[in-house]
Protein backbone atom coordinates (compact mmCIF):
# COMPACT_ATOMS: atom_id res chain seq x y z
CA UNK A 1 0.00 0.00 0.00
CA UNK A 2 2.84 2.36 0.94
CA UNK A 3 4.45 1.73 -2.45
CA UNK A 4 1.35 3.01 -4.21
CA UNK A 5 1.56 6.28 -2.31
CA UNK A 6 5.32 6.75 -2.43
CA UNK A 7 5.12 9.61 -4.92
CA UNK A 8 2.68 11.52 -2.72
CA UNK A 9 4.85 10.88 0.34
CA UNK A 10 7.95 12.22 -1.41
CA UNK A 11 6.09 15.28 -2.72
CA UNK A 12 4.75 15.94 0.78
CA UNK A 13 8.23 15.64 2.30
CA UNK A 14 9.52 18.21 -0.20
CA UNK A 15 6.65 20.62 0.47
CA UNK A 16 8.71 22.02 3.37
CA UNK A 17 11.41 23.16 0.93
CA UNK A 18 14.24 21.88 -1.30
CA UNK A 19 16.19 18.94 0.10
CA UNK A 20 18.59 16.18 -0.93
CA UNK A 21 17.64 12.50 -0.84
CA UNK A 22 18.92 11.79 2.67
CA UNK A 23 17.05 14.81 4.07
CA UNK A 24 13.86 13.71 2.27
CA UNK A 25 14.09 10.32 3.96
CA UNK A 26 14.72 11.92 7.35
CA UNK A 27 11.74 14.21 6.82
CA UNK A 28 9.51 11.24 5.94
CA UNK A 29 10.66 9.43 9.08
CA UNK A 30 10.14 12.49 11.25
CA UNK A 31 6.71 13.43 9.94
CA UNK A 32 5.43 9.85 9.92
CA UNK A 33 6.77 9.09 13.39
CA UNK A 34 9.05 6.37 11.88
CA UNK A 35 5.90 4.53 10.74
CA UNK A 36 7.17 3.69 7.26
CA UNK A 37 9.76 0.98 7.02
CA UNK A 38 10.72 0.96 3.35
CA UNK A 39 14.25 0.52 1.96
CA UNK A 40 15.78 4.02 1.88
CA UNK A 41 17.13 3.45 -1.61
CA UNK A 42 13.64 3.30 -3.12
CA UNK A 43 13.30 7.05 -2.56
CA UNK A 44 15.96 7.82 -5.18
CA UNK A 45 14.28 6.19 -8.21
CA UNK A 46 11.06 7.89 -7.05
CA UNK A 47 12.85 11.26 -7.00
CA UNK A 48 14.17 10.64 -10.53
CA UNK A 49 10.74 9.51 -11.72
CA UNK A 50 9.04 12.58 -10.29
CA UNK A 51 11.66 14.83 -11.85
CA UNK A 52 11.09 13.14 -15.19
CA UNK A 53 7.36 13.80 -14.81
CA UNK A 54 8.11 17.49 -14.25
CA UNK A 55 6.89 17.45 -10.65
CA UNK A 56 10.38 18.05 -9.23
CA UNK A 57 13.44 19.93 -10.36
CA UNK A 58 16.98 19.21 -9.21
CA UNK A 59 20.40 20.84 -9.11
CA UNK A 60 23.81 19.71 -7.99
CA UNK A 61 25.43 21.62 -5.14
CA UNK A 62 28.59 21.14 -3.14
CA UNK A 63 27.86 20.20 0.47
CA UNK A 64 29.90 21.40 3.47
CA UNK A 65 31.62 18.01 3.38
CA UNK A 66 32.88 18.86 -0.12
CA UNK A 67 30.78 16.11 -1.69
CA UNK A 68 28.54 16.72 -4.70
CA UNK A 69 24.92 16.61 -3.62
CA UNK A 70 21.69 16.63 -5.64
CA UNK A 71 19.01 18.86 -4.20
CA UNK A 72 15.38 18.44 -5.25
CA UNK A 73 12.57 20.97 -5.13
CA UNK A 74 8.87 20.91 -5.95
CA UNK A 75 7.95 22.57 -9.24
CA UNK A 76 4.67 24.43 -9.74
CA UNK A 77 3.23 21.28 -11.28
CA UNK A 78 4.52 19.27 -8.34
CA UNK A 79 2.78 21.57 -5.85
CA UNK A 80 -0.49 21.29 -7.79
CA UNK A 81 -0.12 17.50 -7.99
CA UNK A 82 0.40 17.34 -4.23
CA UNK A 83 -2.75 19.39 -3.60
CA UNK A 84 -4.75 17.08 -5.88
CA UNK A 85 -3.35 13.89 -4.35
CA UNK A 86 -3.90 15.17 -0.86
CA UNK A 87 -7.57 15.89 -1.66
CA UNK A 88 -8.03 12.42 -3.16
CA UNK A 89 -6.34 10.84 -0.14
CA UNK A 90 -8.50 12.78 2.32
CA UNK A 91 -11.66 11.68 0.54
CA UNK A 92 -10.47 8.09 0.53
CA UNK A 93 -9.44 8.27 4.17
CA UNK A 94 -12.79 9.79 5.21
CA UNK A 95 -14.68 7.14 3.26
CA UNK A 96 -12.70 4.29 4.84
CA UNK A 97 -13.07 5.95 8.25
CA UNK A 98 -16.83 6.06 7.78
CA UNK A 99 -16.88 2.45 6.64
CA UNK A 100 -14.82 1.13 9.52
CA UNK A 101 -16.42 3.40 12.13
CA UNK A 102 -19.84 2.28 11.00
CA UNK A 103 -21.62 4.97 12.98
CA UNK A 104 -22.61 7.37 10.24
CA UNK A 105 -22.11 7.04 6.50
CA UNK A 106 -19.49 9.10 4.79
CA UNK A 107 -20.98 11.85 2.67
CA UNK A 108 -19.37 12.42 -0.73
CA UNK A 109 -18.49 16.09 -1.16
CA UNK A 110 -20.49 17.95 -3.83
Amino acid at each position, binding site marked *: MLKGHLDMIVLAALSAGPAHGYAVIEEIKRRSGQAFDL*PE*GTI*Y*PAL*HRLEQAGLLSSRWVT*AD*SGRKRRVYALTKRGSSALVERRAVWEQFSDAIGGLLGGARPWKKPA
Partner: protein
Amino acid sequence: MEKAGVISGYLDAIEQRLAFDRSLSRHVRQEIEDHLLEAVASDAGGDSAAAERRAVTRFGSPDMIAAQFVAVSVARQTRKTGVAVILVLAATFAAMKARIAWYVMIQWSLADDLKAIGALVGMIDVYAFWLAVIAGTAGCLCAGFGGTPSAIVPSYLRQTRWFLVLSAAAAGALLVSVTADGILTALRLSARWSVAAVVPLVSMACEIACAGILAFHVRAIARRAAAAAG
Protein backbone atom coordinates in the same frame (compact mmCIF):
# COMPACT_ATOMS: atom_id res chain seq x y z
CA MET B 1 39.76 -0.05 5.20
CA GLU B 2 36.47 -1.87 5.51
CA LYS B 3 34.70 1.47 5.09
CA ALA B 4 35.85 1.75 1.50
CA GLY B 5 35.13 -1.93 0.97
CA VAL B 6 31.49 -2.05 2.06
CA ILE B 7 30.34 1.19 0.50
CA SER B 8 32.41 1.07 -2.66
CA GLY B 9 31.45 -2.57 -3.20
CA TYR B 10 27.80 -1.59 -2.94
CA LEU B 11 28.27 1.39 -5.27
CA ASP B 12 30.18 -0.75 -7.78
CA ALA B 13 27.31 -3.25 -7.81
CA ILE B 14 24.74 -0.55 -8.59
CA GLU B 15 26.98 1.14 -11.15
CA GLN B 16 27.61 -2.16 -12.90
CA ARG B 17 23.88 -2.84 -13.22
CA LEU B 18 23.35 0.62 -14.72
CA ALA B 19 26.38 0.45 -17.02
CA PHE B 20 24.12 0.68 -20.11
CA ASP B 21 23.54 4.37 -19.24
CA ARG B 22 26.86 5.97 -18.27
CA SER B 23 25.47 9.34 -17.31
CA LEU B 24 22.75 7.80 -15.12
CA SER B 25 25.15 5.35 -13.45
CA ARG B 26 27.63 8.12 -12.64
CA HIS B 27 24.98 10.41 -11.16
CA VAL B 28 23.30 7.62 -9.22
CA ARG B 29 26.64 6.54 -7.80
CA GLN B 30 27.41 10.09 -6.63
CA GLU B 31 23.96 10.49 -5.12
CA ILE B 32 23.96 7.17 -3.30
CA GLU B 33 27.53 7.63 -2.09
CA ASP B 34 26.55 10.95 -0.54
CA HIS B 35 23.58 9.28 1.15
CA LEU B 36 25.55 6.35 2.53
CA LEU B 37 28.40 8.52 3.83
CA GLU B 38 25.91 10.84 5.50
CA ALA B 39 24.11 7.87 7.04
CA VAL B 40 27.43 6.58 8.42
CA ALA B 41 28.30 10.03 9.79
CA SER B 42 24.91 10.22 11.54
CA ASP B 43 25.17 6.72 13.01
CA ALA B 44 25.65 6.86 16.77
CA GLY B 45 26.83 3.26 16.99
CA GLY B 46 30.55 4.04 17.24
CA ASP B 47 31.82 1.14 15.13
CA SER B 48 32.16 2.65 11.66
CA ALA B 49 32.37 -0.67 9.80
CA ALA B 50 29.14 -1.81 11.44
CA ALA B 51 27.59 1.61 10.70
CA GLU B 52 28.38 1.13 7.02
CA ARG B 53 26.85 -2.29 6.95
CA ARG B 54 23.73 -0.90 8.60
CA ALA B 55 23.57 2.00 6.12
CA VAL B 56 23.88 -0.36 3.16
CA THR B 57 21.28 -2.76 4.60
CA ARG B 58 18.80 0.06 5.22
CA PHE B 59 19.34 1.28 1.66
CA GLY B 60 18.09 -1.96 0.10
CA SER B 61 19.51 -4.56 -2.26
CA PRO B 62 21.47 -3.20 -5.24
CA ASP B 63 19.44 -5.40 -7.58
CA MET B 64 16.15 -3.93 -6.41
CA ILE B 65 17.33 -0.32 -6.48
CA ALA B 66 19.02 -0.71 -9.88
CA ALA B 67 15.87 -2.33 -11.33
CA GLN B 68 13.85 0.74 -10.34
CA PHE B 69 16.40 3.02 -12.00
CA VAL B 70 16.23 0.84 -15.13
CA ALA B 71 12.49 1.58 -15.31
CA VAL B 72 13.21 5.31 -15.07
CA SER B 73 15.89 5.08 -17.77
CA VAL B 74 13.70 3.02 -20.13
CA ALA B 75 10.84 5.52 -19.83
CA ARG B 76 13.17 8.48 -20.42
CA GLN B 77 14.79 6.89 -23.48
CA THR B 78 11.41 5.80 -24.88
CA ARG B 79 10.25 9.40 -24.76
CA LYS B 80 13.50 10.66 -26.34
CA THR B 81 13.38 8.03 -29.10
CA GLY B 82 9.72 8.81 -29.81
CA VAL B 83 10.51 12.50 -30.23
CA ALA B 84 13.56 11.60 -32.36
CA VAL B 85 11.42 9.39 -34.66
CA ILE B 86 8.96 12.23 -35.30
CA LEU B 87 11.60 14.95 -35.78
CA VAL B 88 13.91 12.79 -37.91
CA LEU B 89 11.12 11.70 -40.26
CA ALA B 90 9.88 15.30 -40.57
CA ALA B 91 13.41 16.61 -41.24
CA THR B 92 14.12 13.87 -43.81
CA PHE B 93 10.86 14.63 -45.58
CA ALA B 94 11.71 18.34 -45.64
CA ALA B 95 15.21 17.62 -47.01
CA MET B 96 13.80 15.39 -49.76
CA LYS B 97 11.16 17.93 -50.75
CA ALA B 98 13.69 20.78 -50.75
CA ARG B 99 16.01 18.82 -53.03
CA ILE B 100 13.21 17.96 -55.45
CA ALA B 101 12.02 21.58 -55.47
CA TRP B 102 15.58 22.64 -56.27
CA TYR B 103 15.82 20.21 -59.19
CA VAL B 104 12.55 21.59 -60.58
CA MET B 105 13.64 25.18 -60.05
CA ILE B 106 16.90 24.84 -61.91
CA GLN B 107 15.42 22.31 -64.36
CA TRP B 108 17.88 19.61 -63.45
CA SER B 109 16.49 16.34 -64.75
CA LEU B 110 18.04 12.90 -65.04
CA ALA B 111 19.79 11.94 -68.26
CA ASP B 112 17.52 9.88 -70.54
CA ASP B 113 19.63 6.72 -70.25
CA LEU B 114 19.37 6.87 -66.44
CA LYS B 115 15.62 7.48 -66.23
CA ALA B 116 14.64 3.79 -66.00
CA ILE B 117 16.97 3.05 -63.09
CA GLY B 118 16.06 6.41 -61.55
CA ALA B 119 12.36 5.47 -61.59
CA LEU B 120 13.06 2.11 -59.92
CA VAL B 121 15.27 3.60 -57.19
CA GLY B 122 12.76 6.42 -56.72
CA MET B 123 9.99 3.90 -56.15
CA ILE B 124 12.11 2.06 -53.55
CA ASP B 125 12.82 5.42 -51.92
CA VAL B 126 9.14 6.37 -51.65
CA TYR B 127 7.96 2.98 -50.33
CA ALA B 128 10.82 2.75 -47.83
CA PHE B 129 10.16 6.26 -46.53
CA TRP B 130 6.45 5.66 -46.03
CA LEU B 131 7.20 2.34 -44.40
CA ALA B 132 9.46 4.25 -41.98
CA VAL B 133 6.63 6.72 -41.30
CA ILE B 134 4.11 3.92 -40.66
CA ALA B 135 6.49 1.93 -38.40
CA GLY B 136 7.57 5.05 -36.52
CA THR B 137 3.99 6.22 -35.97
CA ALA B 138 2.92 2.76 -34.84
CA GLY B 139 5.88 2.67 -32.44
CA CYS B 140 4.93 6.02 -30.91
CA LEU B 141 1.30 4.94 -30.56
CA CYS B 142 2.40 1.66 -29.01
CA ALA B 143 4.66 3.40 -26.48
CA GLY B 144 1.89 5.74 -25.45
CA PHE B 145 4.37 7.90 -23.48
CA GLY B 146 2.40 7.61 -20.25
CA GLY B 147 3.94 7.97 -16.80
CA THR B 148 7.09 6.22 -15.67
CA PRO B 149 6.37 2.94 -13.90
CA SER B 150 8.01 2.38 -10.50
CA ALA B 151 9.28 -1.00 -11.70
CA ILE B 152 9.57 -3.02 -14.89
CA VAL B 153 6.39 -5.09 -15.03
CA PRO B 154 5.80 -7.67 -17.80
CA SER B 155 3.23 -5.51 -19.63
CA TYR B 156 5.64 -2.54 -19.69
CA LEU B 157 8.47 -4.77 -20.89
CA ARG B 158 6.24 -6.06 -23.71
CA GLN B 159 5.32 -2.50 -24.67
CA THR B 160 9.00 -1.49 -24.68
CA ARG B 161 9.90 -4.46 -26.88
CA TRP B 162 7.19 -3.53 -29.40
CA PHE B 163 8.40 0.04 -29.40
CA LEU B 164 11.95 -1.17 -29.99
CA VAL B 165 10.92 -3.46 -32.88
CA LEU B 166 8.86 -0.73 -34.57
CA SER B 167 11.53 1.96 -34.04
CA ALA B 168 14.18 -0.38 -35.43
CA ALA B 169 11.93 -1.09 -38.44
CA ALA B 170 11.48 2.67 -38.94
CA ALA B 171 15.24 3.21 -38.72
CA GLY B 172 15.93 0.34 -41.15
CA ALA B 173 13.37 1.59 -43.66
CA LEU B 174 14.71 5.14 -43.35
CA LEU B 175 18.22 3.85 -44.01
CA VAL B 176 16.99 2.20 -47.24
CA SER B 177 15.21 5.42 -48.21
CA VAL B 178 18.30 7.56 -47.56
CA THR B 179 20.48 5.10 -49.49
CA ALA B 180 18.05 5.29 -52.42
CA ASP B 181 18.16 9.09 -52.22
CA GLY B 182 21.94 8.90 -52.23
CA ILE B 183 21.89 6.79 -55.40
CA LEU B 184 19.47 9.17 -57.11
CA THR B 185 21.61 12.15 -56.12
CA ALA B 186 24.76 10.42 -57.38
CA LEU B 187 23.04 9.66 -60.71
CA ARG B 188 22.23 13.33 -61.18
CA LEU B 189 25.66 14.54 -60.09
CA SER B 190 27.43 12.04 -62.36
CA ALA B 191 25.75 13.62 -65.38
CA ARG B 192 26.27 17.24 -64.39
CA TRP B 193 28.51 18.92 -61.85
CA SER B 194 28.17 22.57 -60.92
CA VAL B 195 27.88 24.84 -57.93
CA ALA B 196 24.15 24.02 -57.96
CA ALA B 197 25.10 20.60 -56.56
CA VAL B 198 25.62 22.17 -53.15
CA VAL B 199 21.88 22.03 -52.38
CA PRO B 200 21.45 18.28 -53.07
CA LEU B 201 24.69 17.55 -51.24
CA VAL B 202 23.61 19.51 -48.16
CA SER B 203 20.15 17.91 -48.18
CA MET B 204 21.78 14.46 -48.45
CA ALA B 205 24.06 15.30 -45.52
CA CYS B 206 20.93 16.23 -43.52
CA GLU B 207 19.26 12.94 -44.41
CA ILE B 208 22.34 10.90 -43.46
CA ALA B 209 22.59 12.77 -40.14
CA CYS B 210 18.88 12.11 -39.49
CA ALA B 211 19.28 8.39 -40.16
CA GLY B 212 22.34 8.34 -37.88
CA ILE B 213 20.46 10.09 -35.07
CA LEU B 214 17.59 7.62 -35.30
CA ALA B 215 19.97 4.64 -35.33
CA PHE B 216 21.72 6.04 -32.25
CA HIS B 217 18.41 6.35 -30.36
CA VAL B 218 17.28 2.87 -31.40
CA ARG B 219 20.57 1.47 -30.11
CA ALA B 220 20.06 3.32 -26.81
CA ILE B 221 16.54 1.94 -26.32
CA ALA B 222 17.78 -1.56 -27.28
CA ARG B 223 20.44 -1.42 -24.55
CA ARG B 224 17.88 -0.32 -21.95
CA ALA B 225 15.36 -2.95 -23.08
CA ALA B 226 18.08 -5.59 -22.71
CA ALA B 227 18.89 -4.34 -19.20
CA ALA B 228 15.18 -4.33 -18.31
CA ALA B 229 14.77 -7.89 -19.56
CA GLY B 230 17.88 -9.04 -17.71
